[in-house]
Each structure stands twice: as C-alpha cells, then as structure tokens.
C-alpha cells in the first residue's frame, strides 16, 4: 500500500437528521497509516457520528468517503472493509452479545472465515494480551463494567484491524482498567483515532489532537498549549507543596 495515500479520506462530508441543524458540515479528513489521533470536542458535536460514517453504519447526505483507496458508496463496499477497521462502542453492552467471553471474542475472526481452531487461538492470545486469561468461559453479562470494556476491546483486537476507532474508551472505568487500556494502546503500534475527554490519556496515547467546530474537524492547538505531563505519584495521598 502506498504510504503517502491516506487510508481514510473524507471530502466535503455532511450529515444531519434535519436540514436546519446539520451535525457534520463539509468535513474534510485524511487519516494515514501510523497516525494516532485524539478527538476532544464537546458533547453532541458529531464525534460518534464521524465514526459511524467511517464504518458505513450511517450514510452521508453529501460528500465522498474513500477507505483503503476505494470509494465507499454502498453497503457492500463497507461490508468489505469493516473487518479491517475496529470500532469500539461507547457502551460495552452493545458490543458483547454472545453468552460466553470466548465466543464473543471469536465472533469476528469466525466471520472473517477463520477456522474454529484459528479463531480460538487468536481469541486466547488476545485475551492474554489484555490480562484476561481466565475469562474465556465467563458469562458476558455477568462481568463488571471494566471487565466488559476490556472484553469488548478484545473482540475488536482479535480481528487484527489496521485501524482502531475508540469511542470514549475510558468512560466510567476505574484506574486499573484505564491503565490496562492505555498500556495496550501504547504497546500495540497500531493506527487509531480516539474520542475522549481525558486530555492526559490522549497526551500519552496520541500524536495529535483534533477538535470539532461547526461540524468540521480542526487541529486543536489550544489543547496542546495547555497540556503537560508530570509525575504525581502520591497525588492521592493528602500532602503539601
């Protein structure tokens, strides 16, 4: 694949449920292999809509989308590329639908035509990578919120996608689960876009941050002026400076 060509290319994309208040307006976006982008923007500004447009779950009212250098017009176009892009939903209960964890993680690989043995192998490897080795026979709806989120991530990673789209991956999680997800992203060397309100998280996992204004994606220079990382190991213990 040509490294110079964007793998996701959006030109003049619009989307809205009514003509008077479009959510996305004339949006241009280029995403290249190896990019690690954070999107930080107010609620309702169209971040999730952007992800759903890339996956073809909703269709733009105008504009063009090209993914892996192929124009995306019909459901069939998107069905061909979906397994190469992994979308992590905000709500893990939307993502996990099989009775057991292993079945859920193997669902993607099986759909991609892998044999049962290969699907189980890759699912076990993925679960181990996220520290979920003993989880394969657990019942999905009996997991805790954090466990559900990690298993959801496993169901995406088991398809070995070339791009990850993570929609608020840290929302509602405890510190331990947050650090597992942060570590996994830093170790994986994959391309991804993360929607999050957590500046520190985006700072440690992404190269650049974008924001959305009036239905368009723009570089967020404001955030970069402010953000700085510093160790504050005993921050949770009362102390004086």
């Amino acid at each position, binding site marked *: 694949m040509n490294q110079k060509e964007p793998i996701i290319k959006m030109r003049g994309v619009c989307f809205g449920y009514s003509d008077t208040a479009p959510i996305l307006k004339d949006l241009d976006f280029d995403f290249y292999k190896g990019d690690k982008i954070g999107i930080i923007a107010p609620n309702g500004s169209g971040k999730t809509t952007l992800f759903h447009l890339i996956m073809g779950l909703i269709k733009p009212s105008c504009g063009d989308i090209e993914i892996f250098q192929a124009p995306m017009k019909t459901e069939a176009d998107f*069905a061909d590329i979906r*397994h190469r892009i992994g979308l992590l939903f905000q709500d893990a209960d939307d993502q996990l639908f099989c*009775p057991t964890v292993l079945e859920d993680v193997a*669902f993607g690989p099986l759909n991609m035509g892998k044999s049962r043995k290969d699907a*189980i192998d890759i699912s076990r490897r993925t679960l181990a990578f996220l520290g979920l080795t003993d989880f394969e026979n657990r019942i999905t*709806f009996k997991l805790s919120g954090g466990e559900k989120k990690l298993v959801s991530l496993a169901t995406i990673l088991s398809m070995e996608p070339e791009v990850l789209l993570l929609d608020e991956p840290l929302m509602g999680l405890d510190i331990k689960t947050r650090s597992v997800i942060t570590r996994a992203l830093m170790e994986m060397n994959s391309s991804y876009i993360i929607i999050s309100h957590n500046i520190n998280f985006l700072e440690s996992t992404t190269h650049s941050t974008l924001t959305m204004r009036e239905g368009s994606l723009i570089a967020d220079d404001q955030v970069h002026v402010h953000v700085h990382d510093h160790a504050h190991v005993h921050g949770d213990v009362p102390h004086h400076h």
Partner: protein
Amino acid sequence: MIEEPFATGNSAVHNIDPRFRVIAAVVYSFAVALCYGFVPLITAFAVSAVSLLMCRVSLKKVLKQLALVNGFILLFWIVLPLTYPGGATYPLGPVTIHQAGIAFAAKITLKSNAILMALIAFIATMTLATLGHTLGRLKVPEKLVFLLMITYRYVFVIAQEYQKIIKSIKIRGFRPKTTLHTYKTFAYVVGMLLIRASERADRVYNAMRCRGFKGTYYSLTDFQADAGSWIFLIIVFGATTAVVALEIFLRF
C-alpha cells in the same frame, strides 16, 4: 430474570451429550402428550420421576417449579368435574359432579407433570447457551436459534433498563395510585422501555456488522457422544416404546 437452577451439576444425566438429551426429550414428550390411558400415563409419570431423581438436583427447587404449573392445573380440577359430562354423577348442592370430568382432570395432571419432569431432567440440566448451540447443531433454523441466544443475552439488559427507569421515578417521589397520572407514568415507562430496547437492538446489530456479521452464526462448541450418551438414548427410547405399547394395548 432467567435463573438456571438445574444447569450446573455433575450427575450422569448432566454429562450426557446435550444433542441426545434434546432428541430424547422431544420424542418422549411427544409420545406422552399423545397418550390417553391411565396405565401409560402413570408409567410415564414414574419414568419421568426416576429420570429427575437421577439428575440429583435440588428437590425443593423442582417442587417449586412443579407447583407453578400445577397452580394452573388446579383450574381444570375446578372446572372439568362440573362441566365434562360422562360416567357416574354425584349431586353436590346446586351442581353435579361428573366422574368423567374427574378422570380427565387426573389425566391432564399426570400428563403435564410427566412431561414437565422429563423436560427438567433432560433440558433444564443444560444452560440456555448450550441449548442454543445444541439446537443449532440439530439443524433447527438459524434464525430461531439466534433469537433464543439474543433473547437470553439481552433480557438482562432490558431488565436493568427497567430497574433504572423505576428507580428514577421513585427518587422523584412517584407512588402508584389509581389516578390518571399513575397510568400515564406507567405508559411512559413501557414506552421508554420499548424505545430503549429498539435503539439497543440497532446498536447491537451495528456492532455485529462492524465485526463482519453477515447472517451466519458460527458456534465454537464441539459435541462428543460417548457410550453413555448412546445407552441413555436407548433407555429413553425403550421407555417411550413401553409407554406407547401400554397406550395401544392397555388403554381404558
């Protein structure tokens, strides 16, 4: 909520290949359902009771399940003796009790309990997830299997949504009364639940599409039929044949 009180266990029955148990339960239940004689029905009742005892499940929980069904059957005991004519009659105050009605109610009781006990013994001793995969392997239409699995998975989520809505109206001081406000509130609760369930369904389907779902559901389970499973099937078929033979030759 769906509890599965009998699904876990380590009895001889629990270890039999689920496919064999489903086939046995279907064949046996059909045979019993079509019997009319007292002798075959009493025999079937005994066979089912023995099968159930072999599962070594909590009898207290079994009786609780049976009580539920027999509550409905009680209605037959009230209605049938008075309305089903035939045989001797016994006047009781203003109404008449018919012998045939009593016999009919007794047969319904025997039949339902025999089938229910067999289903608890053979089917309830596996998890719903296992049952789904088993039905899939037995070539039950994929859509039905899928419906079963998804229902099983999301009935809990819908119950949670319901609890959330109920809590949110409670913390704002809602107390049900016989008022229009109460009816309106309950209508809102039901409506909101339907909307949330439908939106949830859309999101789940989208999530499945994102993971390459194209309408086929692949199962990871591998079923192994051992000698015990074959012996089990032969015994159940033997018992079924015996019940059918009694029905044909000893019916009264």
